[in-house]
């Protein structure tokens, strides 16, 4: 009984990824269509988001999957059908395509058993890490993530349609580069924490990492105000 509850809890955690990806796809492809909330397409769109959001909390596994997949997709499709006469802006369409790909991948990953679920019934506390996670690594990944999100938000400032798509693509490309490099740096910091003590020079790297955030955010947002 305890194992069943533990398995269900793990399934709920795994469903959270699907909910996040699905809500992102919904927010860029359905939310722009919800102007008048009294119409039936808007209600279908809202119902889809509601079914997806509550799906991890449904006690029955089958019903939660129905909410995260069938009801969610049906609601979105009905909303699009009802609002088919309306044109959608270019960047939203591109982001929506990416969002739905992310949702599909997250949903597909549910069929793959987690590493802990394969093989023996070892208890989770046996897999406790021997080395504590490095704070510098977390700071590094957090800075990269923050800069990437800020860049994507800032790309919405471009108003001309012929450059709007290019600005979003530029933000996406730069964001991917920054994320990859910050992950490599974080890996270095974690290894440093694992195999050797910090030297005094690491503080230089901390300062430089702070520059990564300040250089991006300050030069972008502060100049936008001025």
């Amino acid at each position: 009984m305890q194992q069943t509850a533990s398995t269900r809890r793990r399934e709920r955690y795994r469903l959270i990824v699907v909910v996040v990806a699905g809500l992102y796809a919904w927010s860029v492809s359905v939310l722009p269509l919800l102007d008048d909330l009294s119409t039936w397409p808007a209600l279908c769109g809202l119902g889809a988001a509601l079914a997806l959001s509550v799906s991890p909390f449904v006690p029955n596994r089958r019903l939660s999957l129905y909410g995260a997949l069938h009801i969610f997709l049906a609601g979105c499709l009905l909303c699009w059908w009802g609002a088919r006469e309306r044109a959608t802006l270019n960047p939203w369409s591109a982001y929506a395509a990416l969002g739905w790909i992310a949702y599909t991948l997250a949903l597909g990953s549910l069929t793959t058993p987690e590493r802990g679920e394969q093989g023996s019934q070892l208890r989770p506390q046996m897999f406790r890490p021997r080395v504590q996670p490095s704070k510098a690594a977390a700071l590094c990944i957090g800075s990269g993530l923050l800069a990437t999100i800020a860049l994507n938000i800032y790309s919405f400032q471009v108003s001309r349609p012929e450059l709007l798509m290019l600005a979003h693509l530029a933000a996406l490309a730069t964001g991917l580069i920054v994320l990859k490099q910050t992950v490599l740096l974080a890996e270095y910091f974690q290894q440093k924490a694992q195999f050797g003590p910090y030297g005094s020079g690491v503080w230089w790297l901390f300062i430089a990492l702070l520059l990564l955030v300040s250089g991006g955010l300050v030069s972008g947002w502060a100049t936008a105000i001025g």
Partner: protein
Amino acid sequence: MERFILISAIASLVLCTGAAFWSIRLWTEGQDLRGLYFFAVSLVAGALANQLLKAREIG
């Protein structure tokens, strides 16, 4: 040497992020070519950071 490579890589990342912000800023002002130039700078700086971190791994 390793520290130098790391600091250079982080500086390249700062340049990459800053140039990307600046290119979008220029596009909002209507300076398309200068925006493209800064976007190219951003990509080159990102590629440089990548190569520097790879060099650190090999070294």
